[in-house]
């Protein structure tokens, strides 16, 4: 069979190849024939036209020959020729050639050369004469040429030999110019894309073939057809221009056939292949059937599943495999004798009966049911039955096939699962926390359609706020699967249905933020969410809830199941609000207190609070205060820093309240006076917290300072007055005591002379008293009227005047007094005082000059800070100020140079006058070198 197949295949191949070759050959032959036919058609057509032309020419020849009368003279040659030419356009020239010599030519014009031309004699081409001779000899019409014409050009000449009185007369001839000939035969106007025409003649002398249409190819190699014209050796060809087209066509044809061949070969191959594989399949199938039979037997007996076959009629068991027996605890023999229904618990078998009936009636293909079977030992086993019908040859159901699966364990697990499920359900439903099971998958996929890919969280958030309708859409896409009882309670709903129906009403406006947050969360695939937000009960009461959700495991991609808890925190929230509001109240209270309220805690006194007044009072923000651990310490004025800080820590450890006053540096670098009321709380002897209020007292301090300044002024003034009164009392008392003493002596004596002496003494005392009073009059110390009387003095000017007043003395002692003060220095001073001061100091300098030197006095002024300093320096005796004499220099009645008389009033007055004007005086001196008085005028 196999061999046969192969033979068949090869045979088919050979047959196909043969057929194709035959077809190809036939195609080629047909093509070839077609070509030849076409060429022959063209050939005949052309030939016909040539012959027509020749015939016409012959007729013309004959006609002209008729003009020759019996005498051998042509009559009316011209008229007849003209007439003939008119009708026969193919003829160019008509001639009569008596005795071979051309004598009559029409038209004569242009053909004059032909006259007298002996065509039987020596001619320009030997063939002319040969052919003429041939015409004469054969005595028939003969077309000769093409040949060169004597008048120029080439032409075909048709000649008829004319016999008159049985004697050769000559020729009657027509000349057809070559161009005319080619034109009228259609050769020159030949146009065909495939074929050319060619015209030739066998040279009568050389026998060579001469071709006349020089532009066209010769037939040598090309495919051509030919035909001989007349018997003058003319030949007409139709020549194929080139045979590439034909070859191309052939090639296409061959290609086509080759394709068909290949296709057929392949088809044959396929066909035989298929039949081969089919053959193989059958063998394999047979083997498989055998194997399957074995397998089935093994499966039936060894299967871990029970298989029964039972009769349709009585439901008796006909076949049972090993597994059924072991499952039910029966012997196979025992099992084969009982009815199927005996195995089942009776109560449930009824419905099965109807199902079995349906299978029998072929209304049902199979059914399954879970049943409890009786085990041989009396226990019950859960089994899963699958029953199908087995049909016999008559296509009737005659047996049932029952597959029994032991599902006892599964049933137990199921029961357990059911229990667990119920427990979880109760956990869900009885949970005191409101719980929802929801499906966000639509929201999730809706979010995926939005143009928010690649947005940051913040941008997504803004997108939702800008597109509130999207939020609404999301709420609509929220699918609630289940809610628990606490949830109903939270929303004051009587049933789940009521809640779900009004679900859109539980979102208050204040919940939008949390809702947006949660959408952002979903968009970014976060699986947990938690936020405090609000919700509404169905009757519109606002509730605060702690809103959280988790995506259930396994639904992370779709958000298909999400467990939500909405714990009611309204109570907490209300309390929190209360606390916050009371905190706010306290903090606003603290911040309104007109002082910096601060608090620090612990061993390290870390700042824990500072009120916002710190900004108003010091210019610092509370943050700046809190951030710098050493804020307070670093900003106390350096003058009191150490003492204040030390005192602060010392007193803080004593659990007492105390107050400190100090300057603290504000942000603009100015110092602010504060009074800090500090209170300390100790716990177990450790500082727990220290609080205080820092009240700004800069104004108060300024006033205090002003007060103390004016106090000082008054004090100084008082001191001066007291000093003065002391001096006055002393001076006056010394006189009064003298008077008292003298009067005492007068009392004691009785001698008149002595008394007289005492009276004189009283007079002396009176004089002295008078002198003292005169002095005192000068010392107008602390006279308030003068003090007010300040004016702006040019220092230079004032000094110049003082120098001028003592001009006489200066020139007498030849002293040098220099005033180096510049003109622009101005002081505010009483002018009389200033004159007195400069007078006294200058006169002292002149008076206590060094006798060994030329006296030099120099006035110098200099501005320092808020004061002008005037120095008066001399090169005089100097004063010995050892011990504490410096203090006494400016006292009244003090004299430092014994040899020079002095009242001891000058310096005293100078000092008093300086001090009365708020200035000071100081002295630097060295004995033998000189003295320098330094006056300081405050501005």
């Amino acid at each position, binding site marked *: 069979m196999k061999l046969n197949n192969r033979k068949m295949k090869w045979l088919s191949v050979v047959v196909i190849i043969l057929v194709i070759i035959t077809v190809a050959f036939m195609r080629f032959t047909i093509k070839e024939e077609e070509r030849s036919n076409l060429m022959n058609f063209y050939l005949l057509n052309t030939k016909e036209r040539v012959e027509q032309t020749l015939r016409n020419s012959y007729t013309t020849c004959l006609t002209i020959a008729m003009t020759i009368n019996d005498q051998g003279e042509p009559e009316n040659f011209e008229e007849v020729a003209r007439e003939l030419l008119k009708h026969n356009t193919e003829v160019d020239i008509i001639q009569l050639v008596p005795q071979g010599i051309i004598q009559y030519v029409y038209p004569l014009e242009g053909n004059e050369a032909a006259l007298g031309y002996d065509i039987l004699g020596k001619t320009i081409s030997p063939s002319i004469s040969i052919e003429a001779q041939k015409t004469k000899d054969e005595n028939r019409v003969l077309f000769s040429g093409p040949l060169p014409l004597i008048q120029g050009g080439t032409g075909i000449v048709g000649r008829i030999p004319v016999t008159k009185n049985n004697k050769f007369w000559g020729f009657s001839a027509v000349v057809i110019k070559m161009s005319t000939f080619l034109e009228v035969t259609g050769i020159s106007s030949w146009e065909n894309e495939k074929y050319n025409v060619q015209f030739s003649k066998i040279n009568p002398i050389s026998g060579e073939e001469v071709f006349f249409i020089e532009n066209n190819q010769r037939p040598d190699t090309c495919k051509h057809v030919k035909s001989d014209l007349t018997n003058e050796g003319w030949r007409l060809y139709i020549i194929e221009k080139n045979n590439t087209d034909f070859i191309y066509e052939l090639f296409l044809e061959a290609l086509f056939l080759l394709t068909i061949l290949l296709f057929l070969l392949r088809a044959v191959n396929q066909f035989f292949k298929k039949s081969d594989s089919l053959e193989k399949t059958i063998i394999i199938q047979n083997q498989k059937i055998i194997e399957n039979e074995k397998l089935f037997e093994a499966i039936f007996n060894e299967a871990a599943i029970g298989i029964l076959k039972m009769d349709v009629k009585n439901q008796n068991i006909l076949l049972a495999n090993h597994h059924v027996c072991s499952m039910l605890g029966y012997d196979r023999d025992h099992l084969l004798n009982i009815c199927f229904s005996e195995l089942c618990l009776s109560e449930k078998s009824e419905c099965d009966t109807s199902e079995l009936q349906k299978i029998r009636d072929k209304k049902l293909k199979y059914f399954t049911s879970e049943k409890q079977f009786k085990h041989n030992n009396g226990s019950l086993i859960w089994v899963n039955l699958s029953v199908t019908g087995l049909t016999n040859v008559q296509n009737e159901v005659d047996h049932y096939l029952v597959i029994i699966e032991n599902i006892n364990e599964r049933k137990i697990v199921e029961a357990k699962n059911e229990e667990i499920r119920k427990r979880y359900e109760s956990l869900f439903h009885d949970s005191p926390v409101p719980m929802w099971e929801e499906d966000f998958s639509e929201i999730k996929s809706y979010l995926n359609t939005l143009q928010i890919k690649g947005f940051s969280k913040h941008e997504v958030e803004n997108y939702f706020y800008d597109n509130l309708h999207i939020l609404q859409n999301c709420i609509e896409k929220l699918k609630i699967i289940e809610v628990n009882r606490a949830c109903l309670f939270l929303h004051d709903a009587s049933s789940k249905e009521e809640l779900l129906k009004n679900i859109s009403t539980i979102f208050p406006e204040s919940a939008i933020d949390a809702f947006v947050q949660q959408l952002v969360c979903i968009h970014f695939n976060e699986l947990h969410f938690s936020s405090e937000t609000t919700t509404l009960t169905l009757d519109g009461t606002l509730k605060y809830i702690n809103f959280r959700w988790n995506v259930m495991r396994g639904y992370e991609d779709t958000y298909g199941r999400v467990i939500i808890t909405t714990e009611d925190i309204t109570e907490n929230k209300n309390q929190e609000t209360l606390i916050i509001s009371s905190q706010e109240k306290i903090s606003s209270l603290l911040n309104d207190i007109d002082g910096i309220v601060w608090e620090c805690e612990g061993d390290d006194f870390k700042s824990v609070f500072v009120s916002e007044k710190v900004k108003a009072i010091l210019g610092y923000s509370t943050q700046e205060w809190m951030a710098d651990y050493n804020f307070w310490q670093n900003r106390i004025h350096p003058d009191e820093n150490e003492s204040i800080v030390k005192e602060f820590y010392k007193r803080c450890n004593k659990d007492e309240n105390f107050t400190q006053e100090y300057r603290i540096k504000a942000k603009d670098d100015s110092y602010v006076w504060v009074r800090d009321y500090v209170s300390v709380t100790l716990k177990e002897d450790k500082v727990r917290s220290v609080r205080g209020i820092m009240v700004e007292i800069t104004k108060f301090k300024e006033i205090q300072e002003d007060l103390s300044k004016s106090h000082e002024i008054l004090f100084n003034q008082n001191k001066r007055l007291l000093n003065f009164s*002391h001096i006055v*009392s*002393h001076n006056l*008392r*010394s006189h*009064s*005591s*003298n008077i*008292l*003493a*003298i009067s*005492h*002596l007068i009392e*004691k004596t009785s001698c008149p002379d002595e008394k007289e002496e005492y009276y004189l*003494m009283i007079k*002396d*005392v009176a004089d*002295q008293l008078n002198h003292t009073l005169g002095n005192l009059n000068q010392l107008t110390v602390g006279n308030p009227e003068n003090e007010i009387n300040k004016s702006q003095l040019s220092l230079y000017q004032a000094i110049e005047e003082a120098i001028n007043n003592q001009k006489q003395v200066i020139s007498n002692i030849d002293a040098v007094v220099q005033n180096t003060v510049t003109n622009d220095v101005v002081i505010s001073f009483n002018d009389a005082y200033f004159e007195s001061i400069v007078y006294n100091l200058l006169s002292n300098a002149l008076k206590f000059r060094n006798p060994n030197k030329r006296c030099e006095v120099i006035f110098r002024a200099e501005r320092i800070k808020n004061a002008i300093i005037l120095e008066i320096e001399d090169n005089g005796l100097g004063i010995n100020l050892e*011990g504490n*004499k410096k203090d*006494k220099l400016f006292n009244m*009645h*003090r*004299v*430092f140079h*014994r040899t020079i008389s*002095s009242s*001891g009033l000058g310096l005293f007055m100078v000092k008093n006058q300086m001090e009365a004007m708020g200035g000071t005086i100081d002295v630097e001196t060295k004995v033998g070198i000189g003295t320098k008085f330094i006056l300081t005028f405050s501005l």
Partner: protein
Amino acid sequence: MYSKPVKIAVIDNDKIYQIITSKLISKIDENIKVLEFLDGIYAYESLSEQLGESWPDLLLLDIEMPIMDGWEFLESFLILQKKSNKSIPIYMVSSSIAPDDRIKANSYSEVNGYLEKPLNLEVIQKILEEQELL
């Protein structure tokens, strides 16, 4: 009665006071010699020249004086006294009733008393008796 006449130095720049004091002393005992110094400096110069033996037996010292006042003199004299190893009673005499002066005077152990002007016979008598100069 005495081998040597008693000498009392009165140091005061008030000439009238000097006269009156001399008068008063001579009224008590004409033999008492009064040494008059018109300034502390003169008294100091005089005393430093004759160390010890010929020093007066009593000093009546004024406070207010132009060149060397009472206190200056006192400081200088105390050094002198220490040097000479001899001490003489000193009484400050002043017309000042300022308590400061009295307190200052009392602060010197070498100063025997503070007397307010005017002096009279009884006061001088009492001092002399105190110093057993009579």
